[in-house]
């Protein structure tokens, strides 16, 4: 095994190596015991369940996702054994259906995205120079919900009701007419995993925007952070659409609504639209961070900065946007108009430009560099080869006539496995070989790593390349066997052999990881002579990550030459010094501005707590209650969730006092209790509004889609809801929003009493809205189970009432705090008012759209 000191044959390119950079920073071992204690969790099980630190939570995400990866891999091997020979009877058709459903769902929902989320939660703070993520409790909550969601999903095996509807759950197969409780396991397990995904997305976005090291401007951000930022934003939009879609389908199944029931005015194709509006970005949600991994590894092994940084960032932005405009290319065979499908052919072809830019940039970086061919780079080279092949077949299936020919054949199976395994799993394996030494402090065996690569690479190509040919020859996917007369036995046998080789490769990786934890060579802080910040800290990293927050002056901080610093470069010493090994007794990190990363505040981070676990258990119990039709249990669990969230958000007086009495803020010259855009709460509210807006977008799309394809609207004997009551309700809502916004402004200017008075108006007007709209709904002449129109109106109105309820609750909580609030709580109260103001602004905007949709829409045309 190569030792860490022999890892590189040549020195780092610039004059200044990482050792010298490390020498400028205090050694983590110098941390005072009290500071270490501040960041440590209690020992034993208590610590395990109350943990909120990003490092263990990130590792748990990755480890759990890897277990699901192994399960999904086993399912794939079973399928390949069944298909090894024609007319095989090893597995029954039903078992095969369950296998491909669970395999696809596991790999897409339980492995790839959660693994990358875990990587982000673990790695991002180190890479961008922070001590933790923005919302440690939220990431812990997300992990527990993910774990329980995955267990609910797999509990279907215990009760013999395994989902068998495919990972896409097309209606009508997934409606209650054609499938039983197994589909509820799929929908509710999935819903929990989506909630976990949304929490991680929010966490990632706000961490990147607000917790970057001073000096790490947008133009200096590591490409990995750019891709995680894109991933996080895409999750916020795409996952909320899927969550909405799965809830609508579950309502069809449990409550009898009619969104997807054609006989009552619903639409089967609506599900496909909603699902693929999530499903296609999902591919890029996985692929973009994978490219970020590649962009981090390539320059390190090429020993030179990445070629075309700005081009790559442009490609990331392009991909993130355009990926939302491709969903219809999954529906080319669904019977849409030619003109409509042609638009999506065009956009599908054009996304190749963005991928091509990145591929050429990596090749240009490697070109002539004489790269060091270590295992991480081998996987990256494998990725380049496989992803280009998968991309080329992607361009082929973007063309409608070709797609119609190969639709539902093994050609498509080959295509998306080249993209997903080649484009995502190979980079993930590269990441494991590259960053595991940082996580464990031990190098992986290079020899086993090279074997892992070749077994995986050859096995992969042996498995999936023949599938292109099989598809051309007419082998249909999702069918448990094939007739001997198709003469596909040879190809299939080869594919099964390849799958076994891949399995061996994964097993070898597992052995390598386990063995290296004890016997691996010590990694040191920077075994690769890398360029990014995480390599300045010890391996494994201390719980507080950085003893003194770092600052950044270039895109490659460890390769920069400090003697080249110009007068314009700042190192923000006072803020960083103030936090060197401090504060003690409460956790803190620097908050910087979202664009230029100038220090803005010192941010308090929460310590160990059981609240995330309790909230996750209650959330999961709500879903489980619906699953087993125990609606009282579900309602009670939902109530417990709400109470836990209130406890979670309630400012802790003791903590506030501790923060106020600290001299860290004074020493740093920064606020300890920031408000407005300097606070993470403000950004978290904006992120939450993005999620909810996306969910409302899906509901509006549902409403208009159903209307578009309905012969009559309103359907049946229903009439449009009365304009007068609607006008009163929504007029009150908008007036309420104006009141809360005004109250916030007054409070910011110190006019506390006026603010309080006007704020009462917001609560009262919110109550008027709730009363009037619920009265209106109660008297509405189309029940939700009568027609798709009735379903759409009820759900949209109810969603609006729920969102308003949250706004009213926020305002009431603020009103309750203001009279008791000491002047010293002014910052906390201001922030509370600002959050309420943001939410009410959102309510006003979405309220106008809802009013136009529900009340004016049916009366126009």
């Amino acid at each position, binding site marked *: 095994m190569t030792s860490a000191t022999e890892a590189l044959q040549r020195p780092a390119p610039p004059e200044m190596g990482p050792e010298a950079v490390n020498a400028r920073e205090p050694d983590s071992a110098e941390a005072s015991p009290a500071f270490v204690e501040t960041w440590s969790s209690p020992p034993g099980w208590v610590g395990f369940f109350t943990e909120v630190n990003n490092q263990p939570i990130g590792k748990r995400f990755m480890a759990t996702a890897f277990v699901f990866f192994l399960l999904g891999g086993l399912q794939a091997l079973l399928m390949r054994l069944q298909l090894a020979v024609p007319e095989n009877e090893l597995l029954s058709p039903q078992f095969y259906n369950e296998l491909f459903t669970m395999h696809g769902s596991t790999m897409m929902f339980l492995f790839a995205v959660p693994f990358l989320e875990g990587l982000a939660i673990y790695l991002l703070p180190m890479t961008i120079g922070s001590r933790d993520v923005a919302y440690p409790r939220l990431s812990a909550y997300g992990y527990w919900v993910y774990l329980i969601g995955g267990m609910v999903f797999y509990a279907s095996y215990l009760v013999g009701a395994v989902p068998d509807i495919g990972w896409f759950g097309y209606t009508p197969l997934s409606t209650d007419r054609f499938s039983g409780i197994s589909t509820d396991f799929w929908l509710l397990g999935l819903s929990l995993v989506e909630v976990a995904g949304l929490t991680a997305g929010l966490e990632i976005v706000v961490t990147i925007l607000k917790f970057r090291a001073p000096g790490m*401007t*947008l*133009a200096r951000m590591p490409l990995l952070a750019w891709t995680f930022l894109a991933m996080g934003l895409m999750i916020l939009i795409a996952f909320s659409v899927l969550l909405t879609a799965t809830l609508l389908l579950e309502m069809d199944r449990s409550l009898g609504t009619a969104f997807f029931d054609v006989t009552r005015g619903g639409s089967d194709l609506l599900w496909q639209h909603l699902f693929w509006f999530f499903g296609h970005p999902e591919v890029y949600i996985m692929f973009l961070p994978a490219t970020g991994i590649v962009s981090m590894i390539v320059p390190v092994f090429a020993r030179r900065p990445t070629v075309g940084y*700005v*081009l790559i*960032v*442009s*490609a990331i*932005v*392009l991909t993130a*946007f*355009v990926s*939302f*405009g491709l969903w*219809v290319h999954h529906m080319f065979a669904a019977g*849409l*108009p*030619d*003109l*409509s499908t*042609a*638009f*999506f*052919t*065009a*956009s599908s*072809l*054009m996304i190749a*430009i*963005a991928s091509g830019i990145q591929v050429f940039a990596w090749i240009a970086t490697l070109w002539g560099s004489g790269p060091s061919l270590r295992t991480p780079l081998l996987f990256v080279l494998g990725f380049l080869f496989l992803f280009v092949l998968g991309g080329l077949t992607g361009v082929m299936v973007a063309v409608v006539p070709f797609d119609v020919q190969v639709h539902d054949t093994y050609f498509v199976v080959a295509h998306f496995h080249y993209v997903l395994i080649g484009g995502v799993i190979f980079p993930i394996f590269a990441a494991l070989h590259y960053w595991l030494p940082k996580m464990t402090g031990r190098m992986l065996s290079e020899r086993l790593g090279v074997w892992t690569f070749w077994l995986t690479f050859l096995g992969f190509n042996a498995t999936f390349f023949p599938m292109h040919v099989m598809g051309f020859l007419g082998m249909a996917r999702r069918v448990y066997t094939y007739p001997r007369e198709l003469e596909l036995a040879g190809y299939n046998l080869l594919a099964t052999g390849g799958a076994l080789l891949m399995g061996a490769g994964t097993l070898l990786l597992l052995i390598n990881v386990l063995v290296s934890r004890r016997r691996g060579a010590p990694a040191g802080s920077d075994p690769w002579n890398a360029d990014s910040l995480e390599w300045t800290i010890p391996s494994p990293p201390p719980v507080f990550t950085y003893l003194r927050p770092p600052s950044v002056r270039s895109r490659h901080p460890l390769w920069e030459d400090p003697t080249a610093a*110009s007068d*314009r470069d700042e190192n923000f010493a006072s803020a960083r010094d103030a936090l060197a090994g401090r504060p003690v007794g409460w956790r803190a990190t620097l908050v910087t*501005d979202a*664009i*230029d990363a*100038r220090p803005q505040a010192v941010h308090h981070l929460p310590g160990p707590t059981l609240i995330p676990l309790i909230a996750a258990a209650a959330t999961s119990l709500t879903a489980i209650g619906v699953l087993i039709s125990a609606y009282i249990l579900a309602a009670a669990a939902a109530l417990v969730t709400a109470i836990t969230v209130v406890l979670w958000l309630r400012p802790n007086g003791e903590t506030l006092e501790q923060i106020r009495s600290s001299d860290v803020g004074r020493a740093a010259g920064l606020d300890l209790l920031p408000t407005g855009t300097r606070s993470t709460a403000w950004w978290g509210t904006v992120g939450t509004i993005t999620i909810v807006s996306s969910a409302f977008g899906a509901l509006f799309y549902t409403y208009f889609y159903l209307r*578009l*394809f309905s012969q009559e609207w309103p359907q049946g004997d229903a009439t449009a809801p009365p304009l007068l009551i609607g006008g009163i309700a929504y007029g009150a809502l908008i007036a309420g929003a104006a009141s809360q916004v005004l109250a916030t402004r007054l409070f910011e200017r110190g006019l506390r009493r006026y603010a309080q008075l006007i704020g009462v108006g917001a609560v009262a007007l919110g109550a008027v809205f709730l009363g009037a709209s619920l009265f209106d709904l109660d008297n509405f002449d189309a029940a939700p189970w009568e027609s798709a129109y009735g379903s759409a109106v009820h759900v949209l109105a109810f969603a609006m009432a729920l969102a308003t309820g949250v706004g009213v609750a926020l305002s009431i909580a603020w009103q309750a705090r203001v009279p008791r609030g000491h002047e010293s709580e002014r910052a906390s109260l201001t922030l509370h008012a600002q959050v309420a103001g943001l939410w009410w602004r959102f309510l006003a905007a979405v309220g106008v759209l809802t009013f136009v949709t529900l009340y004016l829409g049916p009366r126009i045309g």
Partner: protein
Amino acid sequence: MNEADRADVAARPAPEEHEASRGRRSRESLRARTIRYRALLAFAFFGAAVAWAVHLMVSQLVSEWSYFAGEHRHTFLDVSIVVWILAGVTLVLLGIGGGSLLVARNLRRERQDVPTAPPSAATVRFATAVGLLSGIVFLLVILAQALPLLFFPDGT
């Protein structure tokens, strides 16, 4: 002086231009200028992307709705009215997207006008470069999405 500094100096306006613009600027509140500047920067960064998104949404909705409602049968000069509408939408959105590229180019040239930090001049350079590069491709995608209009004159 590094390359970025040299570029800054090269892009700085002549003294008389600078005086004139300073007088103009003094009449405008700093806050208003900051908001306007950031809005322009956001337009330079996202304008073409939003134009593309609107183009795709409108194209899909209009084509599907007209097909199922039978509206595509109405023609003008033997070409479906739907195709005319979508061609018009394409032109408008190409104009908006092109406008965002122009704004990006102008902001790159006049970057010393940044009223307050953030964003710094370096960030403006970076953001406008990304806006320009991605914007060009977004405009290409809009054009590509308009190509089918030439091949389906009956609007189906």
